[in-house]
């Protein structure tokens, strides 16, 4: 199963597989199974991937609400990572402010350590109420050999609060994924366990790997609280620095994103013996299972059943309504990593089937979980690029595409209904309540009258004075 757009890129075949009849795996390059993931991108293939800095500053560190988010580097990295990802909290300092040591050419030539130290001190002077300074390294400052760790140590002594230095220069890994790892490792090493509070922590948990996109956490934290559990730390949606510092006190780590946050749970397990469970907090079956698994750990099974029954009664009529409207639809899910496999079951609960599943930076274990869950005939694809996405949308023609903002307007230009799974259209989408939002958005996307208008009334592009270039190479033939 080769893509037409990949005729000149045969290596892309190793990143694509079909689930064949009988459940076998049929890879794009003809070999038996296991697609290649977490490997270097083919240069110039129009990837959707970002960089290590993006994974660290944007995903893991950025949501921490009371830290000064300071980029050590030139201006662009700080500007572009500022304020667009809705990792909300009960305060908005982290959304409103971005700080940057603003490296100029002379700093690149003569080194930027002094300016970094000065920047940390000044930022802290402007916002003395901040609990810590998070410093993110970039390509330029890593290459010139600035010793950011040492500067952070000096700064810590001067300002008297944690200065956390993330070595997340953009070129470090093959995708954002490396940035998550750096973020986890650095926060664990520099913050976790640095405060030892007194008290009884026997009925406490951490929610690990949820970033509170459009207040996702609100849709499930009351459920855990209803069990009688207290959430100490949310890693890292709606979290404060002090909560990260006492994270090690929790009795259990409940891991949601199992790509960007398993690292810290593993390190906590090794150092503090903290047990962990993997959960999915989207969809009826998975959300219920998450409550059951968590309850089982604390011996609260009966309470969990009661809560589940009560909550399901609230949403079931709505879910039934949407299921009726959504059933039979096919979906192409393309998310960063685990959301792709988190949602296959949720879509089935709504009567829909995933026909293509892709991730930007998933690893082998993500693709194993996808493969297990997709139906025969469905395809999975690693790190898809723009022409591949276009070919999937036009040739495989899913009824619905769930992806992110960058892909949204491509889908719209091709007349494919779309739901924003990264930052949500009108979220939150997690938990039982969120599932209703998700279903409503999918219903809205699929049944908007605009698609009928396009089908009946759209016209070809008019000839332009340079139409000679209008329909080039490989795309002109009708399907």
């Amino acid at each position, binding site marked *: 199963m080769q893509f037409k757009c990949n005729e*000149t*890129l045969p290596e892309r075949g190793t990143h694509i597989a079909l689930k064949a009849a009988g459940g076998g795996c049929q890879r794009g390059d003809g070999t038996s199974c296991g697609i290649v993931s977490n490997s*270097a*991108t*083919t*240069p*110039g*293939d129009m*990837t*959707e*991937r*970002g*960089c290590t800095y993006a994974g660290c500053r944007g995903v893991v560190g950025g949501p921490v609400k009371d830290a000064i988010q300071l980029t050590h*580097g*030139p*201006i*662009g*990295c*700080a*500007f*572009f*990572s500022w*304020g667009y990802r809705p990792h909300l909290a009960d305060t908005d300092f982290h959304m409103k402010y*971005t*700080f*940057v*040591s*603003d*490296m*100029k*050419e002379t*700093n*690149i030539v003569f080194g930027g350590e002094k*300016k970094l130290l*000065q*920047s940390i001190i000044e930022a802290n002077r402007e916002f003395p109420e901040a609990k810590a300074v998070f410093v993110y390294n970039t*390509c*330029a400052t890593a*290459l010139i050999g600035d010793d950011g760790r040492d500067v952070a140590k000096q700064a810590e002594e001067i300002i008297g609060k944690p200065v956390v230095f993330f070595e997340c220069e*953009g*070129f470090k*890994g093959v995708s954002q994924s490396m940035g998550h790892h750096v973020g986890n490792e650095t926060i664990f090493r520099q913050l976790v366990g640095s405060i030892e509070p007194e008290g009884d922590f026997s009925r406490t948990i951490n929610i690990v790997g949820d970033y509170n996109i459009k207040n996702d956490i609100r849709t499930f934290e009351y459920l855990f609280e209803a069990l009688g559990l207290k959430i100490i730390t949310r890693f890292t949606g709606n979290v404060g620095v002090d909560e990260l510092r006492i994270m090690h006190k929790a009795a259990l780590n409940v891991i949601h994103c199992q790509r960007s946050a398993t690292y810290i749970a593993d390190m906590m397990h090794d150092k503090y013996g903290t047990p962990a469970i993997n959960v999915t907090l989207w969809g009826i079956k998975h959300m219920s299972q998450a409550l059951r698994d968590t309850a089982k750990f604390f011996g609260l099974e009966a309470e969990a059943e009661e809560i589940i029954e009560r909550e399901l009664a609230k949403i079931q009529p709505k879910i039934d309504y949407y299921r009726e409207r959504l059933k039979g639809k096919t979906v192409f899910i393309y998310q960063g990593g685990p959301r792709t496999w988190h949602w296959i079951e949720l879509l089935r609960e709504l009567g829909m089937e995933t026909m293509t599943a892709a991730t930007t930076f998933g690893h082998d274990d993500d693709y194993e979980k996808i493969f297990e869950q997709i139906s025969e005939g469905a395809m999975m694809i690693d790190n898809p690029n*723009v022409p591949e996405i276009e070919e999937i949308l036009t040739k495989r023609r899913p009824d619905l595409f769930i992806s992110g*903002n*960058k892909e949204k*307007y*491509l889908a*719209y*230009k*091709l007349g494919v209904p779309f739901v924003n799974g990264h930052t949500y259209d009108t979220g939150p989408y997690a938990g039982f309540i969120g599932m209703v939002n998700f279903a409503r958005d999918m219903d809205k996307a699929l049944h908007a009258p605009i698609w009928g208008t396009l089908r009946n009334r*759209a016209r*070809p*592009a008019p000839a*332009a004075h340079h139409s000679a*270039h*209008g*329909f*080039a190479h490989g*795309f*002109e033939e009708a399907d």
Partner: protein
Amino acid sequence: MSCVTLQDRAVAINPTRSCAPIGAMLANYGIHGAITINHGSQGCATYPRHQMARHFREPVEVATTSLTEKTTVYGGRNNLLAALKNIWERFHPTMIMVCSTCLSETIGDDIPGVIDEFKEKNPDITIPIMSVKTPSYIGTHTTGFDNFLTELANTMPERRKKKGETNGKINIIPGWVNPGDIRELKHIVREMGLHGLWLTDYSETLDGGYYEPRPHFARGGTTVEDLRSSAKSLATIALQRHIGGEAARVYERRHNVPAHILPMPIGLANTDAFVETLTEITDHAIPEALQVERARLLDALVDTHMFTTGLRVALYGDPDLLEGLTGLVAEMGMTPAYILTADERKPWAERMVELTQELGVESEIIIKGDLHELHKRIKANPVDLIIGHSKGKFISDAEKIPLIRLGFPVEDRFGYHRRSIVGYNGAISLVDEITNVVFERKATAVVSNTLLEIGVEGHTSIPFTFTNGSTNGKH
């Protein structure tokens, strides 16, 4: 008299600017069928793509050479060669532009050398492949746009075959504007009975329609053939001094195409300067349609002056936008109390001092500035309006001062890329918008002008402070 302040802080807090590659990418979008390869880390392509998608609400596609740790050690040559090959084979673009990054510049990759090597190995590939230097640590996002244009002027045009050979067109460099602005400028040029050669033109590529089937390349954009012939134009008009001014001078030096470098045509006088330049170049008279539009702008300025005169406003953004905007702001009787840019060029600041003096307004001109600095100024001495891109919303929210959105990026509103702020029509819509915001702020519940003038306020009213310190409301 206006004064100049150089912001003196190492750390930038809430910058008004981003970095060079996005400028080159944007400019390249104005060439039909051209594709950008960004030579660096993946984030350097993905972040600007995302930013542009949020502003233009269009699919924005930029390739990256995906440099990683290994390539950083051994150099990015192989990745760039592979990217050039892959882009050519999969897309058959009309042109490729390779822009650099902090990473590729710092490790010292010789991009023009690699391009030459690629062309030697592939003699059948004859499309132009242009290289533009865009490390983030030099200048701002405007630097990338300007470097692109200078490079284009240096490398793309074909020399005149004989003296006096002409294509009958005028090179027009709009600078960093919106698709709606380019369409307005085109309208002016068309009404003048002239033909523009647009350097470059993303008025349709980044504000396209829905077609079935989707064209392989977005409709619109200046063709490579037009770029080739741009040395045969009658003149070059650069409508932003810092974006395209140098390119215009290159056309003059290398190809004898006279350069006209003008302020951004925002407001009456600045638009007049553009229109008058067109008449000087060609002897064409100002047509009836433009005379009517001009008169309509004057009429709008008269009708609104009692609501706008005396207001203090804060402006921030790119130098050229600020220069043009200051013209209109002063024509409306408002005082640009703060004019803040991230740019560090002193000559610009000095010109702004002269300009504000000519216009009879007094401003603090802040260079190397950021939005946190502006916020502190506004807290200490409030303004009535803030004018700039979306990132000023945090000041606007905190201080409850309305923000008039323009410039780049406007990511928290819809369709601003379609609007125009240039030309007579652009000025009219801006005058209307500003005045309406003033109305809304004064009294949403009050609809009569008479009531408004005697100071009756609705429930959402916030008192105004005028330059003389008086207020028109409670307090």
